[in-house]
């Protein structure tokens, strides 16, 4: 199952970065996000999966599409991909990066805390999917939680101001 969704995610990402039309790219990104949500579920992060679909795929990507439509970028005449040099550079750097990350991943990342296997799913069963994070969120990380709302407020105001035709 995991591999299926992984394949979808990676394929979607590939499509996203290579499509000519911005709308197509956006839609492929949505597909990728959905696959990721599925993977989240498989990783015992059901609440996060839901959030992913609602917030990311549902709100952010919709916003993207709005802007694309607004700017009338629907049909693309010439490709906006870079020339051969650019592609080479992108390919090279991408490969290097993935190699490095892979090596990093392989290296021992043993941390001090190690939950017993499957413990997260047990917590989910006991307290519900949201309960997994509720403790941390509303106790330890309460302040960041509140700050985030202020951040969102600032973002709203900023977006409105920046997008005005006339200040």
């Amino acid at each position, binding site marked *: 199952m995991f591999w299926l969704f992984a394949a979808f995610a990676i394929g979607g990402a590939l499509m996203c970065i290579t499509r000519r039309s911005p709308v197509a790219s956006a839609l492929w990104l949505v597909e990728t996000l959905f696959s990721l949500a599925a993977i989240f579920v498989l990783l015992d992060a059901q609440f996060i999966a839901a959030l992913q679909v609602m917030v990311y795929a549902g709100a952010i990507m919709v916003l993207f599409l709005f802007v694309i439509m607004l700017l009338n970028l629907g049909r693309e005449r010439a490709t906006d991909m870079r020339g051969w040099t650019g592609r080479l550079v992108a390919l090279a*750097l991408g490969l*290097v*990066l993935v190699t*490095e*990350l892979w*090596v*990093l991943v392989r*290296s021992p990342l043993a941390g001090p805390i190690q939950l017993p296997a499957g413990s997260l799913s047990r917590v989910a069963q006991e307290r519900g999917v949201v309960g997994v994070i509720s403790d941390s969120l509303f106790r330890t990380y309460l302040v960041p939680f509140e700050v985030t709302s202020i951040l969102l407020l600032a973002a709203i105001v900023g977006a409105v101001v920046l997008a005005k035709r006339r200040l």
Partner: protein
Amino acid sequence: MNEIPPAVSWTWLVVALPLAGFVANGALSFFAPHAKRAISAVGVGVLVASFAVALLVVRAVGAAPPEEPWILTYWSWMPAGSLQLNLAFQVDQLSAVMLMVVTGVSALIHIYSVGYMGEDPGYARYFAYLNLFVCFMLVLVLGANFPVMFVGWEGVGLCSYLLIGFWYEDKVNADAGKKAFIMNRIGDFGFLVAMFLIFQATGSLTFREVFAAAPAIFELGGPTITLITLMLFLGCTGKSAQIPLYTWLPDAMAGPTPVSALIHAATMVTAGVYLVARTNVLFAMAPVSSAVVAGVGAITAVFAATIALKQWDIKKIIAYSTVSQLGYMFLGVGVGAYASGIFHLATHAFFKALMFLSAGSVIHALHHAYHATGRHEDAQDLRNMGGLRRYLPWTAALMWIGGLANIGVPPLAGFFSKDDILARTFARGHEAGIYYLFWALGAVGALLTAIYMTRLLVYTFHGPNRTGEREAGHLHEAPWVMTGPLVVLGLGAVTAGAVNLPAVLPGAEWLARWLEPVTLLGGQYLLESHLGTATEWTLLALAAGIAALGIFGAWRLLQPAALKPAREAPAETGIQRVLLRKYYVDELYDTLFVRPTAWLSDRVLWKIIDAFIIDGVAVNGVGRLARFAGWVGSRLQTGQVGTYVVLFVLGTIVLLRALLRS
């Protein structure tokens, strides 16, 4: 050490007075160059005063001759670790003799210059330089250690350059000055190397310490001492114009005649002889070097005399004569007769200065004559002279006295001093045959001296006058301010011989005995060599005979009537041309040394090293490199987001790499 007499403690004044004269005249040359009376008063006054003080000092030395020299230390110059160099003067018998010669002859020449240079626009500058020269020369002879002496050594070289090129607007004169200075420099290199070696071996540069330590430190005839003395002698060949560094002296005649008299006859060129005499213990310990000194001296004596035979310029003849006589002096000190060398130095100062100054009178007269008639002939060419004894009787008489003294006619001074040297050379003959050869060279040189000197005098003063009909009316004797010093010098040339008469005569060898405390150290290495009385008398007679032979031979063979004035004279051919052209030595040096050096300087040092490497690579290259680095940096600031992103990612990769390593 004995107590220093009060008069001796005034020695510094002897040096300080000419220095003050230099400063004063220098200032006058800027502010009041036409204040002739003031300049003369200062210029001559300081010299006369200096001479007076020197006289007192010498009298004190004479009254209580010191066994050890009196050292007067004025100033700590270079305290450098174990080496303590002071500005110190040394007063002993040798420096006393040199003091007398230098201040005395200088004072007379200064007086003469008042007349000779009277109409020159650079009058103040002339006296300034002349005073400075005397100051440096005195530093040279009074120095108590090698560096102080070297200061004087260099200083007189500098003044020589300044004075030779006095009329610098004419390139020939400037070139002559440069030539003198550069050739001196080559010699100075030898002096410096010798100084370094001496310091390395003995740890000191003070005369007293070095000479005291020398017998213990150096191996007799060993390589170190030989090298040191040869290097010192190299300095002497430069300063005193011996082979191979003599070619600057004839060219130096481009300077005013009193300069030639003072610097290139009486004082500066004798510095080399003084050096050898002062460091006699070092030379005595290196028999090879001493032989070289004697040999070079003898060869130079003959060589220069042959050149003088065919020169037409009156000053050049006297110049080559100087080179030749210096050769005799070196012959003297080379065979260990240090006192004899100094003796000849002193007598030569008299008669050579006399010769030069008399020649100056002659030239002065001809200049006036040509000036009056508007012609531009060479006032120094013998072929334009002739029969001048009718017009310049005093000059003629005095120049004859000087000439005879130079030739060595008894009882004039030159006879005794030259004979002294030759006798001592001969006396060492039984040690090694080469000394007989040197003696023979000396004798040949004496004959040649007689010939060329007589030629000079006859062509100048006797026979028909070739100056020209109209000029003849303008020829007249020099003013008294010029003739007066000539008379004094003439007296010296006549009587100075009494100072060191040969052993067989009563009252003999006074100077040698007086200088004994100085020459003692060196003398102990010389084998006792005494000539038998008969041999001495024979040699005396021989010397006189050679002189007479030369004079009469030349008198007979010369035909002054057959000469034509310089403008119409035919070119020389054959051997005469070789002699006239000084054996083409200058041309040889030019090809061997001057041209390659000039080529090297132009092609390599200038074009490649200076322009290309230093300017191009180092200076401009650094600039260009900086600009290039800046350009590279600027390429990063494209303003393109894409570029920045790439750099971003690159940075991240590098960071991850670093993470990986740790």
